[in-house]
């Protein structure tokens, strides 16, 4: 199959989703190569601390990326995720600062609901009106950020205004494993189960690989698209709480430009932007690869002026390497 062509052939009604297992194998090799590379470059890399740091570092991205993947599966896109995270981070933090005794669970719940509501706005517009999702979500990227800026103005909420229990969400550990990483794994695990083992999950991929025939076979594609956006919004709400807890200062610019980081994660993870193809496992590996790169470069004490250039280069090399590896496997007939 030609790789430069981004369109998939019409799929039969509700196929078993193709399992691009070698996609994940390729990414796994890339990840291992990177880890070995950084471990030889800097002795500090191969330590438990580093892996705990990577685990924490990738979790916020991964949580949002899982949502983004669901949206991409249905042949749509959500570029408003950065603004949604920003707005929910601000609302959650200001709520906590304003109501000191508020139970944390309630804060998280409120943030998730708010995020889900924002996602539902995207979802309604995209699903019922069948308008291009990139336009809608680029629009809401600006609208949500505008609301954030109008509400926050010049105010900043700092860790000093928040109870210690708030930042404990981000800093806690269980058996040395960072809590944040566990949240992210739980989200990814749940999404994996839904995609792989439920009718809804398979239907999502089917909608993305061939919307017209999916609809003919009676799949409620509108509801699935709406659901994907709402879930993404909800996950952004969770990510917003974690953002405030981890980074301490919340102002009107939280998570500006985050959408590109999320997209990079998802696409490195092998999810196709034209829909229907991808796995949650791939997204996890994508997040791990990007986090290993940034953490490794930071530990190697690379000059900040070089950091961005090297990071960009390594992303390109990683996806190119993965592609070459996959082609080699396919030509040997390992894959179908």
């Amino acid at each position, binding site marked *: 199959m030609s790789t430069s062509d981004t369109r998939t052939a019409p799929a039969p009604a509700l196929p078993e989703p193709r399992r691009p297992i070698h996609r994940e194998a390729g990414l796994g090799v890339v990840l291992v190569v990177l880890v070995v590379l950084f471990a030889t470059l800097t002795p*500090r890399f191969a330590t438990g601390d580093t892996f705990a740091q990577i685990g924490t570092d990738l979790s916020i991205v991964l949580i949002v990326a899982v949502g983004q993947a669901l949206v991409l599966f249905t042949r749509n896109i959500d570029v408003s995720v950065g603004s949604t995270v920003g707005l929910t981070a601000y609302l959650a933090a200001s709520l906590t600062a304003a109501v000191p005794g508020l139970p944390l669970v309630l804060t998280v719940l409120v943030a998730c609901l708010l995020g889900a509501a924002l996602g539902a706005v995207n979802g309604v517009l995209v699903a019922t009106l069948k308008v291009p999702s990139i336009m809608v979500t680029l629009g809401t990227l600006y609208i949500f950020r505008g609301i954030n800026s109008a509400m926050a103005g010049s105010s900043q909420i*700092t860790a000093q205004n928040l109870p210690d229990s708030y930042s404990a969400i981000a800093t806690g550990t269980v058996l040395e494993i960072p809590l944040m990483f566990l949240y992210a794994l739980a989200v990814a695990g749940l999404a994996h189960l839904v995609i792989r083992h439920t009718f809804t999950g398979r239907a999502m991929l089917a909608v993305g690989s061939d919307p017209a025939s999916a609809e003919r076979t009676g799949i409620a594609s509108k509801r699935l698209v709406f659901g994907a956006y709402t879930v993404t919004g909800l996950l952004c709400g969770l990510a917003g709480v974690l953002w405030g807890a981890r*980074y301490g200062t919340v102002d009107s610019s939280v998570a500006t430009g985050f959408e590109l980081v999320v997209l990079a994660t998802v696409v490195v993870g092998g999810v196709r932007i034209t829909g229907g193809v991808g796995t949650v496992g791939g997204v996890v590996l994508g997040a791990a690869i990007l986090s290993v790169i940034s953490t490794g470069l*930071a*530990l190697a004490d690379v000059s900040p002026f070089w950091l961005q250039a090297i990071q960009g280069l390594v992303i390109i090399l990683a996806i190119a390497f993965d592609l070459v590896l996959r082609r080699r496997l396919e030509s040997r007939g390992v894959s179908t």
Partner: protein
Amino acid sequence: MGAAIATAALLALTACAAAEPSGPPPPRPVQDCNLTMIPKNTDNPYFAAVRTGMVDAQRELGGDLSFVGPAAGDVTGQIQRIQSGRQRGSCVIGISAVDSSAVAPALDAARADGSRVISYDADVSDGSRGLFVNMATADELGRAQFDILARAMGNTGEFGIVSSQSTAEVTNGWIDVMIAQLDEPEYSGMRLVRTSYGDDDAKKSYDAAVALLRAHPNLRGIMAPTPIAMEASVKAATDLGVADRVVVTGLGNPGNQTELLKTGQVPAYVLWSPRDLGYLTYYAAAAYTAGEITGRAGETFDAGRLGSQTVGPGGEIVMGHPITFTQDNVDRYLRDFETTG
């Protein structure tokens, strides 16, 4: 397309070349004036306090104040505000420049159209403004921050810097002063291991601080010459469990960072009064547009509650000295950081 060309043609036909300016614009009393005051960014408690000071002065002097700027500091946003000030014929355009040279052409065009230009907080290129209201000299500000760090580190050990944008000239000026201090014999035991940049973004600053702390296990101090980086560095040091051996200090904002001092997480930090800076800037602008001062060294003007002020060499008005805030004195200054409206 057709519309664009038609518009262009129409305008070309009806247009006449802008008249070349001859000499300085005539004096205008501030009461009859619109003043456009552009901060680096509006979504920032520091500039909100500057605005409070400008409004204080406006109540005393009169005039029409437009305090407008981009939400997040960007050159294009500042240029657009300069141009709208120019178009509505503002007597004075005041700016805290994101980039000293990038805003210069727009300021020059505004001057050619009869606006007077002053800079405050962060200067613009020479020749593109008449006055510069400076909070304190870069030398003093750099030293004041460095002194706190050096004392807390006992003049020995490794430290790193987490700054704002790598292109932020004011901050870079302070960092140069700090690096020069390291050549003094008494600081020979101190070593700067890395200067990194957090772009005044909480996440990037936090990540930069974590990178510093992990890549340099012997680090004893972090210099954060911007409030967001200071907050993030304190958090990073706490999260990594090294807060007891790593000192964090730099530039802080008592407006929302008094707790950092009271809890002892930061021994002391430096700033000045943003409210006074706004107040003084407005008074200087009023004196400038009324023709009382022209930007020559030695001129004096009345600055209300701040008394008589003198223009220094290069049209620079230095407000005073940096203030070092500690847990003992910070409460006395809180009114300097009030943000209203």
